[in-house]
């Protein structure tokens, strides 16, 4: 009869859980939660915490610092560059200092002595030269960096001197050297025969952390680099869990399974609102980093008409998106680049939200109402697809909102979500009608983002192919990058930005910002100039 009792017990459990699923909250629930909370806090105060659990929506992937397939926050932890970009300019990193010759074509870097890779190899000018050689070998991959096209050569005359020679003076060089990739240094011992374009043997850098363990799509553990040349970080161990789902991330934070969420698209506005007044968690919002916008593919037959593109601009209610979806956390955007971006404070007339104007533009373009409420022209319906990144927490909601808004005009918008990687692949291949995109943000805007429009690096190249003035725009961008005259540069920027604005290729939505929620006992958090970098080395617990 033992069996009978067992089954009765199990049955009881089943019944309780079943009934429980239907009933509302009870007094018992709240006491349980309180109990767990108090036990947690007591256990935490006992020990000095020097570990941190971070979260990301996907795996760290290939961290090869000379390619673009890895997660940038992780590359920033492991690898370092010659210079760092700060709020007020540049500061030395692997190079202690540098000189620029009079005509601006030769940069001489004085390499920091006694810096070692985490495998014991020395990081001197020769190692840096080896890195540059490996990067230059794969030059085609880095054409978005204009310096690649202007590079005459690199050399290491002695172990503490590294020289870069350019064919033209190029003002954003230090920025390009300071961004996360590709000019980050990996131990020459980790390269495959001095080359990195086909992968590396190990992710060995000079940074404050080393990658000590990882399980694909589950977690990665970073520990402090004991031989780090700079100050030792207070947090000795960082675990990064992979949690693709927004709700799950927030629950994990709530339950203390993770300590910290960071990113532009990692937390939705509802969650931020929820934690605004919380004592256990602190919410931080950065200044606007970049513009959230939609790219219109001008090679699409329907979208090649500038009137249709302008109609879409006027039909987009940025104010409602800003308030309704972001609760005002992200301000509505009027132009592709915010006026605070260098060279972008120019006088552009924003496309105001005006459904009537949008409708009349469509009518002018020859579209008339069809039988099922969708506009048609020559028997063809005005049907478009908007591609969104399903890893982003807000793009789907914006897409659904726009779908209902555009439907009022008679535009049939289907929305389709794909995960980050395939979304990017499709964007790059120009395989879309409308697609969500972000500006590259600081420090890439505007020079690198614009430079990249000239080659199939990103969606912009494909999207702009249908523009009549595409050649002119490209020419002007090239000229900007090598011009030394400040006024000339501004004129060219004004021309490019005005043309793109009038061509109505980009629908700006909001100025997005980096968002973070972390345990309130964690200190030292701040946002950096490089928007993807998480300053783990500055964190500590109270």
């Amino acid at each position, binding site marked *: *009869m033992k*069996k*009978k009792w*067992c*089954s*009765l017990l*199990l*049955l009881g459990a*089943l*019944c309780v*859980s*079943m009934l*429980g*699923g239907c009933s509302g*909250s009870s007094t018992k*629930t709240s006491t*349980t*939660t309180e109990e*767990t909370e108090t036990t947690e806090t007591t256990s935490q105060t006992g020990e000095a915490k020097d570990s941190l659990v971070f979260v990301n929506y996907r795996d760290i*992937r*290939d961290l090869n610092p000379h*390619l673009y*397939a890895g997660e940038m926050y992780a590359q920033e932890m492991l690898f370092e560059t010659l210079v760092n970009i700060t709020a007020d300019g540049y500061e030395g990193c692997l190079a202690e200092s540098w000189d620029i010759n009079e005509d601006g074509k030769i940069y001489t870097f004085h390499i920091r002595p006694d810096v070692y890779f985490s495998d014991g190899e020395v990081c001197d000018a020769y190692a840096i030269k080896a890195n540059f050689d490996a990067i230059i070998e794969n030059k*085609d*991959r880095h*054409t978005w960096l204009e310096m690649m096209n202007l590079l005459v050569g690199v050399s290491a005359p002695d172990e503490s001197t590294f020289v870069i020679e350019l064919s033209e003076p190029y003002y954003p060089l230090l920025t390009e050297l300071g961004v996360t990739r590709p000019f980050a240094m990996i131990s020459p011992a980790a390269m495959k025969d001095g080359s990195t*374009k086909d*992968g590396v043997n190990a992710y060995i850098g000079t940074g404050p952390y080393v990658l000590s363990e990882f399980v*694909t*799509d*589950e977690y990665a553990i970073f520990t402090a680099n004991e031989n780090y040349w700079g100050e030792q970080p207070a947090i000795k161990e960082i675990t990064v*869990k992979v*949690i*693709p*789902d927004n*709700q*799950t991330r927030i*629950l*994990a934070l709530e*339950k203390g*399974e993770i300590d910290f969420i960071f990113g532009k698209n990692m937390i939705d506005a509802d969650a931020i609102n929820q934690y605004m007044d919380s004592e256990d968690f602190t919410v931080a919002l950065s200044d606007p980093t970049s513009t959230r916008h939609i790219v219109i593919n001008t090679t699409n037959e329907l979208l090649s008409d500038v009137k249709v593109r302008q109609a879409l601009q006027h039909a987009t209610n940025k104010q409602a998106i800003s308030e309704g979806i972001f609760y005002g956390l992200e301000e509505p955007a009027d132009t592709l680049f915010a006026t605070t971006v260098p060279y972008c404070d120019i006088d552009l007339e924003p496309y105001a939200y005006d459904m009537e104007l949008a409708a009349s533009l469509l009518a002018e373009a020859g579209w008339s109402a069809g039988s099922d409420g969708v506009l048609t022209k020559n028997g063809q319906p005005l049907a478009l697809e908007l591609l969104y990144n*399903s890893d982003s927490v807000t793009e789907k909601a914006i897409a659904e909102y726009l779908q209902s808004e555009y439907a009022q005009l008679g535009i049939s918008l289907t929305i389709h*979500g*794909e*995960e980050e*990687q*395939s979304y990017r*692949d499709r964007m790059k291949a120009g395989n879309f009608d409308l697609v969500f995109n972000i500006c590259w943000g600081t420090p890439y805007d505007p020079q690198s983002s614009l430079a990249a429009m000239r*080659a*199939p690096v990103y969606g912009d190249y494909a999207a702009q192919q249908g523009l009549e003035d595409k050649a002119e725009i490209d020419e002007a961008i090239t000229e900007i990058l090598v011009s030394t005259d400040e006024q000339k540069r501004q004129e060219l920027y004004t021309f490019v930005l005005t043309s793109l604005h009038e061509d109505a290729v980009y629908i700006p939505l909001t100025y997005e910002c980096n968002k973070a929620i972390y345990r309130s006992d964690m200190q030292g958090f701040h946002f950096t100039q490089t928007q993807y970098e998480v300053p783990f080395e500055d964190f500590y617990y109270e």
Partner: protein
Amino acid sequence: MKQYVFKRILSTIPLLLIISFVCFVFINLIPSNPAEVALRVRQVPIITEEAIAEVEAELGLNRPFLVRYVSWLFDCLKGDFGISYVNPSRTVAGELARCLPATLQLAGASLVLVILLSIPIGFLCAVYKDGIFDKVMRALVFITTAMPPYWVGLLLMWFISIKLDLLPTSGGGSFAHLILPAFTVSLSYISTYIRLIRNNMLENMKQDYVLYANVRGLPQKVILIKHILKNSMHTCIVAIGMSIPQLISGTIVVENVFAWPGLGTLCISSIFNRDYPIIQAYVLLIGVLFVVFNLLFDILQTVSDPRLRKEGA
């Protein structure tokens, strides 16, 4: 007997071939060009028609269809299913190997739950037929068959994990993570098997041997457990065994609800990302598992049941 088993094994070979052929046709019907993918893998910045033609020749994509099928089949037998279209640095076999254990774990836990819950409940329902317990259980069974598993999952997640904060909401890892998904998966099977066992036992109760046992004056408990339950168990175990592949494929939805890092999550995200080689390998794997389990339990049943053994020979 041996002859039967041998024949049965041989008869699955054409079936396996058909399954593999269907899977191969599948990947050939889709619009994406493997040569283009290969070029992307090599991070070639600009993909031209000539480059595609070159790679096609290199990969042997211009060979006749059947030749490609045979070489693909041999690759599969060697465990080489190609590379993922979306994450070219990962092999399909590696992805499957990474996710399979989690799925097996979930399916295994669900199976244990199914057996632990459905047999005693079904037994009690049959013994106390039309009693309160039987009626309550039948009502519950009725409702659970009408509940979509994903909704059950959401309700459990909300109530057990969020409201009561007893178990982790989702993700993989510890034993605690396993409980809710396993229960959700098993729920729809439990109701099926409760019904099966109950009806089977009621059938058995009417059999002559039960009457005979009663006449012999055996205690009721002994008759119920040693005779009726034992006989019913036999059918049920075979039925449950046959449903193991169903269970494995049935985890697909629940895995997605609970973000369980198994094959189901992999499969759905591959569908969204059009990562066809992974979908192909997944379908092939489940198809083969299905056939193999059917074969295994069919043989097991024949071997264990004297009546069928005779027929088989």
